[in-house]
């Protein structure tokens, strides 16, 4: 056997393996090319520009900062009111603290005790201070925080039946109707805006007032209003089309 033939025989399996590998690569390329090039939705640019407009009209500086704090401000006012009330009336019940700030220290022992001490001069033992509970602390917590009513009102009972997600969506739809500017400001900051909107519109369609809300939103002067309105107006049509 010549040297050339021996080399060829040795290299043949490698060459075949390489051939297979190249063939495999070619097939993979063909398979990857089966995915069609996706066509972007027609409204993509207009939606992007609407979101940018909403982003631009967003208040900035101190006004924007204060508006951003608006939900926190309500909570702060409530907390402040509660703190003032507690300061004036006293704590609703003893929180288990040990310091004089929560309890009044007895300034002096009673006169009878003082006399006895004068008649029997004994070495004074250091005694722990006496505390008296404040009048406010004696009041039962139930007086301040009455428990839930025995039977809830019918509306509340109906709300409780709804799943939590639906209740949240209902609140957000109410927010859209009562304060559209604040809603749009919030909406412009949401990352998954379209999906969020879809959920709202679907919820509204299930309630049966999507068309009504869509028309009301259409009347609002805001760059995002047409997009939101369109979603609400379209929502009842999609299940109908699906049924057909």
């Amino acid at each position: 056997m010549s040297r050339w033939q021996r080399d060829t025989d040795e290299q043949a399996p490698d060459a075949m393996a390489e051939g297979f590998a190249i063939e495999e690569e070619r097939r993979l390329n063909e398979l990857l090319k089966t995915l069609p090039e996706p066509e972007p939705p027609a409204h993509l640019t207009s939606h992007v520009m609407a979101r940018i407009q909403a982003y631009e009209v967003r208040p900035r500086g101190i006004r924007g900062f204060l508006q951003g704090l608006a939900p926190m401000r309500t909570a702060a006012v409530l907390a402040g009111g509660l703190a003032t009330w507690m300061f004036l009336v006293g704590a609703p019940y003893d929180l288990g603290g040990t310091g004089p700030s929560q309890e009044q220290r007895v300034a002096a022992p009673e006169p009878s005790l003082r006399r006895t001490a004068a008649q029997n001069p004994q070495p004074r033992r250091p005694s722990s201070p006496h505390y008296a509970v404040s009048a406010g602390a004696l009041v039962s917590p139930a007086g301040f925080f009455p428990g839930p009513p025995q039977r809830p009102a019918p509306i509340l009972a109906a709300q409780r039946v709804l799943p939590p997600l639906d209740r949240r969506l209902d609140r957000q739809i109410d927010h859209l109707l009562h304060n559209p500017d604040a809603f749009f400001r919030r909406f412009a900051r949401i990352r998954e805006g379209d999906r969020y909107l879809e959920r709202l519109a679907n919820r509204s369609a299930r309630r049966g007032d999507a068309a009504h809300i869509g028309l009301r939103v259409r009347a609002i002067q805001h760059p995002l209003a047409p997009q939101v309105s369109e979603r609400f107006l379209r929502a009842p049509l999609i299940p109908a089309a699906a049924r057909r």
Partner: protein
Amino acid sequence: MQAVAADFIRPALLGASMSTRATDVDPDSELVARWQKEGDMEAFSMLVKRHERPVFGLMVRMLGDREEAADASQDAFLSLYRHGKRFRGEARFSTFVYRVAANAAKNRLRSLRRAHARSQALGVQQAGGAALPSAPRDPEDSAAGAEDQRAVQLALGKLPYDLRIAVVLREFEGQPYSEIAHVLGIPEGTVKSRIHRARSALKVLLEDFVRERSEETDS
């Protein structure tokens, strides 16, 4: 997302391709200048129109769902608007757009994963649950060859983000290695190795389909 543009501007370990690219004429440079210097929104709108197809394509490949892709594309363009002023023309504008889009896709994948985990934990089928990359629901599914397409999309969805973005930019968007290196902020050698690893993984994931195809060719 704020780090997107800052990272992009950072001079990376990307070698000589930068200088060659700088000498090329960027077709977007005029529109970018009008938008950046004069605040011309018409110019920005034209830039969006010009780049919506590649960005949307990238999103569909990365997320496997048209609705999600449309949403993520909007996020990407909004982010481009917010941070685009930092673009100083060191590379092509399209590269910058791809970089912003890649980061938007990454964020979206992360939020989808979180939503999916939440819905699984609650045992609730959420609206977006069926829109995860592992379950494409495209009208194109009904067309011929839909099974192949579905298999490829599923296989892509199984790749980790780093490999997926590299292979999508190369195989579907047709970007050269040097551009991908710029987009991802990694050296060209790393891009090549990631693409190689991604293709190897795809070959394994699509083994049956590759074999079927070869049998069809042989017969």
